[in-house]
């Protein structure tokens, strides 16, 4: 199933992230796909805030560090596989510990490792439309993801515009 939203600003993207973050309970995998500058780290910043991670922690890009961990209501593991050649590299990093742990996981450039992302993950595609404007498509299947996105959709409808 799909839900497509239009973000008109960085603020919109952070808000959407925050709503998603509020609805995470641990064990979720959020797979982000979108070109450079499309707002992946920005969306993650919102998710972190929604998960109750303190403003003291700047949500910085994990491109070089590969995995950033943040303590929240549940831990957030922020992965970036931009520099990896594929899922084999991630195996070498011991990703199973994160994938099957109690935290929520956000993966940037997820399309590079799509063969190992579980099908019940939440897939988010960010697309550049014009300067501040982005199309954000959320694709999901399974009960758990459906419940989360249903609530996200309701809150977006009531809070946006």
């Amino acid at each position: 199933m799909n839900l497509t939203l239009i973000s008109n600003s960085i603020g919109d993207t952070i808000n959407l992230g925050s709503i998603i973050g509020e609805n995470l309970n641990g064990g979720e995998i959020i797979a982000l796909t979108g070109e450079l500058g499309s707002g992946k780290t920005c969306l993650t910043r919102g998710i972190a805030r929604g998960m109750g991670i303190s403003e003291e922690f700047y949500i910085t890009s994990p491109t070089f560090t590969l995995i950033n961990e943040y303590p929240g209501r549940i831990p957030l593991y922020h992965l970036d596989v931009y520099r990896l050649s594929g899922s084999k590299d991630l195996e070498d990093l011991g990703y199973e510990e994160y994938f099957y742990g109690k935290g929520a996981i956000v993966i940037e450039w997820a399309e590079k490792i799509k063969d190992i992302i579980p099908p019940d993950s939440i897939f988010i595609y960010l697309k550049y439309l014009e300067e501040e404007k982005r199309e954000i498509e959320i694709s999901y299947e399974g009960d758990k993801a459906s419940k989360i996105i249903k609530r996200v959709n309701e809150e977006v409808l009531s809070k946006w515009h």
Partner: protein
Amino acid sequence: MLVLGIESSCDETAAAVVSDGTSLLSNVVASQIDVHSKFGGVVPEIASRKHIEVIIQVIEQALDDAGVTLDDIDGIAGTRGPGLIGSLLVGLSVAKSIAFMKDIPFVGVNHVEGHVAAIFLTEEKPEFPFVALVVSGGHTNIYLVADSGSFRTLGQTRDDAAGEAFDKGAKMLGLGYPGGIVIDRLSKGGNPAFVKFPRSMKGSIDFSFSGLKTSLLYYIKKRETPVTEDELPHIVASYQDAIVDVLVDKTLKAAEEYSLSRVVIAGGVAANSRLRDIFHERAGGKGIEVFIPPPVLCTDNAAMIAVVGDNLLKRGERGSFDLNAISRWPLDFPGEI
């Protein structure tokens, strides 16, 4: 005192031997040595398993280059964090094993502190206190360094690190990897005023490079024609200056704010030639002395780990055999948070 340093926090597997915390006897970084003959064509990077494959050979090479054996080593220093746990554990476990086997002390070292300490391997050593800028692919931090091991964060990036801005900018323009080196080379002779890229977070000592990355994206998208080869040096020179400008400005601003007359620049991006030039140029007029290690000691290495280790060992610190690696380890805090 001879200290063997071991580093495996991220991409590089490295070992080095340092005498008395000031004299470099050897400095081996796996990806820089003759990989084809030594490692059968495997370039060690990222993965912890790759660190395991090469770490013993890297240590042996460091001992050989220094003309010593393990029997001559008085102490071991291993990177404890910050970094990837799986990668860190490789170096830290080897450090502990050698210490146990040879019955010599070992200590766990903070990688970022190591970057700053690299300056003590050069001829011109700064006196404390000073302001330090640590700038790499993963870090962009300004510290007040009151004394050896005494750090206070004055500023940091809120989104991307400067090294990442270089790499992603290069990627958007279809240039090679690593982006920092390509941009440094290509921008020579370019006009840095060709494109007006933004300087963000004016008035603060914190950094933000995400907006710069996005403005390059908009610049490319809004053009009606593709970037030509003639324009490229000017565009990258402009982009590079937007990064260099804020790094230099904020670091010197921090020094002035805290009335300090010395700044140390460290980390992989400190190898950038434009950054080095502009720092010297602008600091001179303000009466601030600038200390930058040679490029080989700016990028990740184990010599810098040995320097910090030497200091900790001389202060009587000893790592226990159950010392764990830590992924997040801000320098303001002596232990884990």
